């Protein structure tokens, strides 16, 4: 099952490699991993999307906690949470397709952030599923490149991950 794990760690050189190293050494899946500093400059927050049986997820949670530089870990999928991912898609946009592509972008509440005579670059934010749906809704042959940030997650309401 898919899980979104959020963690706070010391914002130190090499900390990211301890997490990614743990996943590869123990054979855990990483679907996506994002990391950036928080409002507290000494801490980084990481969101890892992974999948596995309950036993594997339990081990991932414990093994992450065991890393010396990890301050706090939360499995967001255990409760109410929000998930957002940013995607940039560059598409070929010429002739009749130009109008169609604009319409689809509006339907998905995206915006076109760069225009050339032959291309659009579309920015889209949402849960992973929404981004997938957009890619399926447009003509695949028109996609020139896509870049995605991977999911960031946060708990709903009082579910707060902090020091």
């Amino acid at each position, binding site marked *: 099952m898919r899980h979104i794990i959020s963690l706070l*760690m*010391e914002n130190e050189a*090499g900390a990211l*490699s301890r997490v990614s190293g743990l996943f590869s050494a123990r054979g855990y899946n990483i679907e996506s991993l994002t990391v950036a500093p928080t409002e507290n400059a000494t801490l980084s927050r990481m969101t890892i999307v992974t999948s596995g049986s309950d*036993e594997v997820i339990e081990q991932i949670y*414990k*093994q992450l906690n*065991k890393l*010396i530089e990890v301050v706090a870990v939360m499995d967001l999928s255990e409760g109410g949470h929000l998930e957002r991912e940013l995607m940039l898609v560059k598409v070929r946009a010429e002739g009749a397709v130009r109008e169609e592509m604009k319409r689809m972008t509006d339907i998905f509440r995206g915006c076109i952030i760069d225009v050339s005579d032959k291309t659009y670059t579309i920015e889209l934010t949402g849960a992973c599923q929404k981004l997938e749906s957009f890619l399926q809704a447009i003509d695949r042959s028109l996609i020139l490149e896509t870049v995605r940030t991977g999911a960031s997650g946060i708990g709903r309401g009082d579910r707060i991950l902090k020091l």
Partner: protein
Amino acid sequence: MELTGAEITIRCLQEEDAEYVFGYPGGAVLHIYDALFTQDQVKHILVRHEQAAIHAADGYARSTDKVGVALVTSGPGVTNAVTGIATAYMDSIPMVIISGQVPTYAIGEDAFQEVDTVGITRPCVKHNFLVKDVKEIASTIKKAFYLAKSGRPGPVLVDIPKDISCQKTEFSYPASVSIRSYNPAQHSDLEQIKSAVQLLLAAKRPMIYAGGGVILADASKQLTELVHLLGFPCTNTLMGLGGYPATDKQFVGMLGMHGTYEANMGMQYCDVLLAVGARFDDRVVGNVKHFNQEKRKIIHIDIDPSSISKRVKVDLPIVGDVAHVLNDLLAELHGSQKKPDQQAIAPWWAQIKEWRGKNSLVYKKSDEIIKPQFVIEKLYEVTQGDAFITSDVGQHQMWAAQYYKFDKPRRWINSGGLGTMGFGLPAAMGVQLAHPDAHVACVTGEGSIQMCIQELSTCKQFQLPLKIIMLNNRYLGMVRQWQQFFHGNRYAESYMDALPDFVKLAEAYGHVGMRIEKPSDVEPALKEAFGRKQQLVFMDFITDQTENVFPMVQGGKGLSEVILAEDL
């Protein structure tokens, strides 16, 4: 007064009361060696290969309750040390390794003897540091010792670039340390202690299974008291030997792949299992599915939450320091209205007695050829069970574990988790330095000993009167045994040809060498060797080439599917 980074490093070791540092000099650690040279509080033991430095620090740590310390140079110094570090990591041994690094301005330029030490060692240390500011050396080393010893112990590496070790700053050693992201558990939840006691007292077929955690936590006394109070059978893992006295009547022997019949059957068919500082690893429970076919309640005490329900699902986890938890359990038991009911478990003991009757450690005696088991039995007798025994890895290791009855903790020193050949001799050096007046024997084979044999030179330099008990069967015995069982007797590369004359070799290093070829010579030779209190004696026992280790639970099999010697 300002000190150099190198001087600060040594001052830190002094502050930590490090008695010995095991190491090997090189370019990147020259400043640190220079600082060592001008003091005599911390004694340096010069090994002949960095792997041995780590094993020696490891043996020192295992035989005491102290942190082992090693010092190696950058590049090959570190890569040579990796085997030792991984060995210590797998067995949770507290250790601090100081490594030199190329100067900070050269890092990343593929400098001479540069290697990404933090990257290479990351998967086999509890934690590691690269010090980039001379002002951080003292606080980093303080943290390193704290991390190494607290919680689940382990090796911690501090990498110090050469320019940092010669820059100067004021020295002050932090009095205490706290790391906000690191808070190992100490005491356990009292509710869980209560539940555990209820489960234990209701057991009809109980079993206590204790591992290396008991030894690391210095909790043998508490474990022994608990086992006696409950009247339950107790088994030890390979790492736990000595954690419970082997000559006690409630001891059912070691369990696992080469464990006794009664220990493995007891483990399989118990209804309540108390696991103490052990981790249900593959060499202990074998096939987990097979193990889970029998229903039992499992209580698991461990300092490391990630050890709990990793391979075997447990019903009642108790996370905490083993000694603290056992104290809590004892207090709860003493205060409990309900007392352990020996009548209720009498049928279980009768069953265990029946299993014991199989006499699973019996072997065919011989007057003509030396049986390896016989050597260990005689070693036990001659040393009156009171020696420190280190071992390498293979058949000899299993025989030592099976036939030397360890009554005290920290007397059995072996590489259980990683299974590192070459461990025994350097580990014994660390043990002997920690216990200068004790008998220290290294049980080894002609395969393993050659992996760190250069340390005979270190032993000469530091006058370490070890006794090397080499069971020489001219085979990589455990490999040969598996080839016999699983590969149709095709002994691929497991025959040890062109062996040196070990007696002459020992003499060449300045030691005493003995070759023993007849069973009747075993005991007199051992007596003579242990009588030579000032000398290292290298004993080359020519043993039965085809002897196998039994009992054996084959890989992928369950504990009750054990093969006994009599089955073949």
